[in-house]
């Protein structure tokens, strides 16, 4: 297991957002982290990264990492693609990428191969890009470096259907090399990419297993995720 | 039993001018000497001013850097009407306090369009205008850097003369009592919970369908009004108004008082204000005898404050409460 989360709890502003979350992420393929809005998916990722104070255990590559500063954890090979992409709007595309480089030999080849558009737009301010293009920048930032695990938070949120499928294809290619923990609302994307699935409900893990098993059972999908749009 | 502690303290404070007790090292003379009574009166006024400020800072979470403006407006307004225009004390106060409230409403309406640090800076800038005006002595009204002594001709005889210092002391106590009743009244009312909600998470309050802008403005005006009243009382006790009342340093010291005592708690700001004003005056009295920077009250108080932020985040009252708890 590349990531083991045990009894992870988070309290923020008096509310108990995570109440003992436990799950593992295998060292290959895509693991989906699912659940209704507000159950704590993003908080789980941010707690693993050390961006919110948490108690419990988090092991990354066999080492306990909870309490380690975010930047050191990231440098040990954990790539993060946040919700809403968080590209630096005032910086150019090239500057956004240059900032993210931490390996001595950044893999611009893969990035330009996956996103030829970014090379053409290198001098453009990231704030003026479309949502899909910003998502490319956000993904490119983690692909420049060698990582042992990627945390990817809602990469298709707010994107047009054609762009969603392009992003999903990129993630499928990336997942051949690096394991991904993926938060995703679009179940079609989950069905296409994910091997395993972890479902959160009210700050706890409600279900773990194979993604296909979960999505194959319409009733269970509805109770756990509260959606009827299982494609 | 604990409920009666404030009443016992109040009774003791009321009776204090009848005591001839001497506490060497703490006060220069006996408790009922005019010097000690005036010093205590100033402490009580600052206890009230600090609690009024804490309505903004500790309760509503509004970090205003311009509270001195309203104190100075109260002090100078009252002083000018009495000394230059020959108004009676009561007429002056009855005019000045609502006028200060209006001033707070106007400036607060602008400043509260911003939030966070920008709000702090805007209030600071507005108060700076007050500081400039007071120092420039427009039309000879404010007396510039020298300040404006209060003309005692317009005052009731009971408030004039060294022999009547006890009356000034009771006046200061009355002001503190008014602030305590108002602020604690708000704490107990549903409004108090809404205000702390505002401080902790503004979105939650606006979800309840309440206008956060209106609430904050109301609090700002109320705190400004109490400050204006306190300024008037201060002018009576020290016999005039001085530019220090309008300075940014005064607002900063109100923050220090609230935090030292325990911001947002029932009695924290009162205790902090009294302790600060006492130390400030006492260190000035004995300062000449202390070596180096210790002769500067602000050095001692500023350093104490920085230490308190690290080591006693709940302030004096927080420390006392922690002592109590394990027992």
């Amino acid at each position, binding site marked *: 297991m590349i990531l083991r989360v045990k009894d992870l709890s988070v309290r923020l502003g008096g509310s108990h957002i995570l109440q003992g979350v436990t799950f593992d992420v295998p060292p290959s393929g895509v693991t989906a982290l699912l659940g209704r809005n507000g159950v704590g998916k993003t908080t789980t990722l941010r707690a693993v*990264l050390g961006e919110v104070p948490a108690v419990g255990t988090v092991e990354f590559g066999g080492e306990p990492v909870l309490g380690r500063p975010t930047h050191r954890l990231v440098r040990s090979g954990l790539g993060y693609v946040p919700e809403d992409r968080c590209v630096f709007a005032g910086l150019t595309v090239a500057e956004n990428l*240059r*900032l993210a480089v931490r390996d001595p030999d950044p893999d611009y080849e893969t990035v330009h191969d996956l996103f030829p558009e970014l090379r053409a737009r290198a001098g453009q301010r990231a704030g003026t890009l479309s949502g899909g293009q910003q998502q490319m920048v956000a993904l490119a930032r983690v692909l420049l470096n060698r990582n042992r695990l990627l945390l990817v938070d809602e990469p298709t949120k707010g994107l047009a259907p054609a762009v969603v499928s392009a992003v999903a294809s990129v993630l499928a290619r990336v997942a051949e090399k690096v394991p991904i923990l993926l938060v995703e609302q679009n179940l079609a994307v989950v069905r296409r990419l994910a091997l395993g699935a972890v479902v959160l409900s009210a700050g706890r893990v409600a279900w773990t297993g194979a993604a296909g098993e979960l999505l194959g059972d319409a009733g269970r999908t509805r109770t756990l995720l509260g959606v009827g749009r299982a494609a | 039993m604990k409920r009666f502690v404030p009443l016992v303290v109040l009774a003791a404070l009321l009776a204090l001018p009848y005591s001839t007790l001497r506490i060497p090292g703490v006060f220069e003379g006996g408790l009922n000497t005019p010097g000690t009574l005036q010093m205590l009166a100033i402490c009580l006024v600052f206890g009230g001013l600090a609690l009024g400020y804490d309505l903004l800072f500790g309760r509503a979470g509004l*970090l205003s850097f311009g509270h001195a403006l309203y104190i100075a407006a109260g002090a100078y307004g009252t002083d000018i009407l009495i000394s230059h225009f020959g108004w009676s004390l009561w007429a002056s106060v009855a005019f000045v306090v609502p006028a200060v409230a209006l001033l707070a409403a106007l400036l607060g309406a602008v400043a509260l369009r911003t939030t966070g640090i920008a709000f702090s800076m805007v209030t600071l*800038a507005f108060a700076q205008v007050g500081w400039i005006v007071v120092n420039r002595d427009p039309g000879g009204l404010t007396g510039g850097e020298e300040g404006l002594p209060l003309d005692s001709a317009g005052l009731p005889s009971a408030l004039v003369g060294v022999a009547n210092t006890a009356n000034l002391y009771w006046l200061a106590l009355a002001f503190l009592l008014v602030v305590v009743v108002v602020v604690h009244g708000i704490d107990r009312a549903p409004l108090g919970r809404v205000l702390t909600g505002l401080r902790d998470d503004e979105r939650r309050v606006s979800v309840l369908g309440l206008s956060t802008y209106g609430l904050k403005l109301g609090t700002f005006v109320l705190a400004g009004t109490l400050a204006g009243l306190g300024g008037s009382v201060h002018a009576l006790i020290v016999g005039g108004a001085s530019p220090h009342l309008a300075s940014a340093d005064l607002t900063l010291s109100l923050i220090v008082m609230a935090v030292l005592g325990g911001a947002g708690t029932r009695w924290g700001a009162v205790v902090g204000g009294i302790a600060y004003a006492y130390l400030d005056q006492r260190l000035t009295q004995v300062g000449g005898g202390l070596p*180096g920077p210790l002769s500067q009250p602000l050095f001692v108080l*500023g*350093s104490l*404050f920085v230490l308190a932020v690290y080591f006693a*985040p709940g302030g004096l009252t927080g420390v006392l409460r922690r002592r109590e708890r394990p027992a």
Partner: protein
Amino acid sequence: MSTVILLFLTGLGLAALYFLIASGLSLVFGLAGVLNFAHGLFLSVGAYATWWAAPRWGLALAVVFGIAAGAATGALVEVVLIRPLYRRHTEQVLVTVGLSLAGVALLQSVWGADPRTYPRPSWASSVTSIGSAQVPVDRFLLIGTAVAVLLALLAFLHKTRYGLIIRAGVENRDMVSALGIDVRRAFTLVFTIGGALAGTAGVLGGFYFGSVSPGQGASLLIFAFIVVVIGGLGSVTGSAVAAVVVGLLQQFVNYYGAAGAGDVSVVVLLALVLLLRPSGLARTAATV
């Protein structure tokens, strides 16, 4: 006409001082989220360090010493006082408030409350004629220094990796950490730069006013705050533009209006700007 030229250059000289203070404040606030009340203390430390060193080591070395003292104070304050309160912004502001009160009192206890005559290079106290106006040369020293600092800051922010980190951090410091960068090292850096610039302002302010006193930093600081808010928090270019506007407005209105009217007009300008675009100013600027 000669009055206008003199007022214009004097206003620009004042603007130069405001800019030197405001640019550091703005970067510190934009990146670290700290409203730094101790910034005026950095200025006073720089000014007094030069004043102290000038008769001992000569003015040139003393100026370098003053700037270094400002920078060292900035770095020290960040590492010792601000860093332990990481992310607790109100406490950080409170600590800088306490520090500014205690620091000014400390200077006062050592060198007294009264202004001290400031050493000046002889050429800076001479006068030159521009058209019909007699303009003191120190105005050009101030303006020249501020322009050089502006250009150097922009080059630093746009051409170096640390500049890139600072610009990104002003937008979103959590995301900078999430890219594997220790953003707190950048905090120390901006405090050091801010301290050095404030120290420079202290020395130049000494030349400009001809004297130094413990409270000098605090009174300049308030106008620098106004410049920072008008210019946009976190924006160096914005600070430069706002400093020029504020400096000129203040000089001209003070001369042609009533005494003190210039200072008041600056506050009115602040209120107007806030009324017209309140959210635009509360937000950090997108570009540095």
